């Protein structure tokens, strides 16, 4: 295990080892020959493999596709895949390895917030570039990360507005169910502030958290039923994560909670999660995303075709984080082409204002707050495991990564 490789300039500058360094005279795009390296930092084993392997496949598909088109700047792309194994410190180690040993030009990776938080200092120290494709709690903005998933205002708030609208059933009582980690906690804090502002009292809000991978939902679902029996239209807002969703939805179906009575809108349940469930009892429950596989747009048709022929399994679906990966990749490729280099600082500048026609059917733009403008869509679960889109915003919405509903952000200058 002695990978002795020549030192890159940026790592050298970053490290204090630079004190002894030879003057750094090599231009920024010195590694301008050879393939462009694309790091893939998604868990292939452990608890998160279930969600993240599809993103690894998406990046590999995009790399293959780009190479078929002749690469970028006349250089081929080469993917470097590592397995951080759902182990957060290992994420940091692998990030360092990608940047220092493999010297990747860009990295696509992470799913959970904690994995992103774990690698963030590494990317900042070594001035790397990370594309993060999953919806998250916001309250962050790093110059080394481009966030291509939704911020809370691009998902949670429109979804709750919909639930309270006439079309959504006019909910007056809200159950906030979540897995006990930072994304649900933050999202629910924002939602509570929002609901209070809309005139829903704290007594009409039930908030409950469960551990990761929670599998016995009997008690909670029956408590939700009790909460709903108070004579006001009740709806569930679920930020339940990953594995826990299948047993949750099974319990929901089995306890006979119909979407017409108590609709449940989820922020972490997409086509991929539904693939493990018989959705017939769940028809009508909702999800809020920025993309559904059922979107009808030429780009989406193309995207689905590309995925189908890459993965060679007609049962595999596309979902929102995959779309965010696709969009992020396209944007990065455009930015590199525009900057005519893969150097991080130049690419970063080129990223701002970059536009891509996304599979969502909208033109999404990268803003200087490192977040995309995205449309918000509400879908109802169908018997075939797909979503029927019952609502979408007329245009893409700009991200508010610093939520105005968190009082501590009030003092923050309304940064663009």
């Amino acid at each position, binding site marked *: 295990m002695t990978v002795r490789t020549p030192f890159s300039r940026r790592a050298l500058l970053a490290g204090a080892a630079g004190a002894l360094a030879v003057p750094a005279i090599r231009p920024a795009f010195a590694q301008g020959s050879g393939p462009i390296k694309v790091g893939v930092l998604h868990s292939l084993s452990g608890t998160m*493999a279930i969600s993240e392997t599809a993103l690894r496949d998406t990046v590999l598909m995009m790399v293959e596709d780009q190479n078929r088109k002749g690469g970028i700047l006349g250089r081929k792309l080469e993917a470097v895949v590592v397995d951080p194994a759902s182990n957060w410190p290992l994420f940091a180690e692998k990030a360092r390895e990608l940047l220092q040993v493999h010297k990747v030009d860009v990295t696509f990776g992470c799913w959970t917030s904690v994995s992103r938080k774990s690698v963030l200092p590494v990317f900042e120290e070594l001035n790397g570039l990370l594309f993060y494709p999953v919806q998250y709690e916001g309250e962050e903005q790093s110059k080394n990360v481009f966030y291509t998933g939704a911020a809370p205002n691009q998902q949670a708030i429109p979804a709750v507005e919909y639930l309270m609208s006439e*079309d959504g059933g006019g909910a007056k009582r809200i159950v906030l169910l979540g897995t006990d980690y930072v994304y649900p906690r933050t999202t629910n804090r924002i939602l509570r502030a929002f609901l209070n502002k809309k005139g829903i009292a704290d007594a009409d809000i039930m908030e409950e958290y469960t551990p990761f991978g929670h599998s016995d939902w009997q008690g909670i679902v029956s408590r939700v039923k009790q909460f709903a029996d108070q004579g006001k239209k009740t709806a569930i807002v679920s930020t339940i994560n990953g*594995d826990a969703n299948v047993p949750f939805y099974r319990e929901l179906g089995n*306890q006979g909670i119909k979407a*017409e009575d108590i609709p449940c809108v989820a922020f972490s349940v997409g086509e991929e999660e539904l693939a493990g469930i018989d959705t017939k009892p769940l028809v009508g429950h909702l999800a809020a995303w920025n993309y559904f596989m059922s979107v009808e747009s030429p780009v989406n048709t193309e995207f689905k075709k590309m995925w189908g022929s890459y993965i060679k399994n007609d049962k595999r679906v596309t979902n929102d984080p995959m779309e965010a990966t696709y969009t992020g990749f396209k944007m990065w490729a455009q930015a590199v082409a525009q900057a005519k280099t893969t150097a991080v600082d130049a690419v970063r500048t080129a990223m701002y204002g970059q536009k891509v026609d996304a599979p969502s059917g909208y033109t999404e733009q990268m803003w200087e707050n490192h977040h995309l403008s995205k449309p918000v869509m509400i879908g109802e679960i169908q018997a075939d495991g797909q979503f029927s889109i019952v609502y979408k915003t007329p245009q893409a919405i700009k991200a508010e990564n610093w939520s105005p509903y968190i009082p501590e952000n009030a003092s923050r200058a309304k940064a663009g």
Partner: protein
Amino acid sequence: MSRLLRLLPLLLLLAGPLRAQEGFETAAAGLSGGFAAQVEAVDRLGALGDPRALPILRALSEGRLQKTPEGVLVIGGQDALTGAPAATASLETVRINNRVRGALRGAFGRLELASFSVAERISAAGGLFRARSPDNIAMLEDALGRESDAAARTAMEQALAASRLAAPEAAVKRQGILLLGGTGSPEARSLLLEARAANPDLAAEIDAAVSAIDGRLQLRRAAETAFQGLSLGSVLLLAALGLAVTFGVMGIINMAHGEMVMLGAYTTVVVQGLLRGTPLAPWALPLSVPAAFLVAAAVGVALERTLIRHLYGRPLETLLMTFGVGMILQQAVRLIFGAQNQEVTSPAWMQGIVTLPGGVEVTQNRLWIILFALLVLAVTVAAIRFTRFGLEMRAVVQNRRIASTMGIRTGRVDAMTFAFGSGIAGMAGVALSQIDNVSPNLGTGYIIDSFMVVVFGGVGSLAGTMIGAFTLGLVNKMLEPWAGAVLAKIAVLVGIMLFIQRRPKGLFALKGRAAEQ
């Protein structure tokens, strides 16, 4: 023909003015509009009571209704209203949302109240209960007069009560309140509370009715909590039973036990896949049980013969080794089947709710799993008590040398015992596939709980395993409402740790000389 006769009184009752025909067509046209227009159309169709609406509304609710760009409704290539062949090009499925679905439920209620099928009449009454419109009172009273089925009568009475509650006249409302108070259902409670705000003059009556319901609900909720505890206990029992054999009887710490459970769940997926489209498809789940037993047992035999037999008497080494085996099995499944969740469909008889006497509602699948767990326990006990294999197994456990001198092939018995324990784990996997994710990580979630159950119940005692599992399940569920799911679980874990140090051999300890070894 008789159906028509049956519908006749209803038709007479509902038959509106002569313009009904025209009203039907204009109302139906609204179905191709936006969600709001759809709701209105569905309501009108329900109010009209024209039986022709039924197939159209069914098609709408099941996603079979299509429309042409001009808004002509089409079902299966035919014009929905006229039945004439329709254009097949550029058809678009008519989409609905929850509001439309709610309206449909009310419309179905009106249209199906006179149906032949008892189930449909009950569901119709349920729809009317939720629709709670005073318009339905007359219809319900009439239907009730003809109804002979007890369950359907109850449902209709409830629906009638709810409809009366919505009536403008206070006297009718009072009737409704009394009736609702007598049902004891949480839905009725919800309706009453909703009505309370709108009818301050009836507050006293409503409060009385609500508290009557609350009294009955309290008992029901206690019963339901107990059921949840039993259900969790049955899951723990299933997961732990195989371990009770391999660990309790053989002293092997099988950290790959969870993976055996996982293999059982994947066997279910494979069996379902193989049988899909064959006449046997509805039997896929029962057939998975022996299949899962065999698969897990076969892996168990292979494991025992190649690896574990070298480590007898060194339980801690088996722990480390089987941890490695678990890693390999998990990754193998991940590479073969993919990391994603696999879909397992539940047969119809395992879905939904059963109402037990006293109005206690329990979920079907959990009920089946409790029964299944007890069945597996019975089979295990029977296999150990009453079969030749069980006899040999007990002999080998008690005294290996003497057993071997008596002609028992101890190696074979070891292999079979381990296979047996693994097979039980596989069967547990079939049950767990019904309530949990079928993913490569399935087993990891159960391994520690299983060990805790076995140790708590007393190693080597199946009765202890059973009582241990149900005790832990019940305690956990009783703590959960006020401590939350996580704290309840932590409390149970700490409780077990303290218990073990008071009684190191568990609930049902083997005593005397044999336990000293």
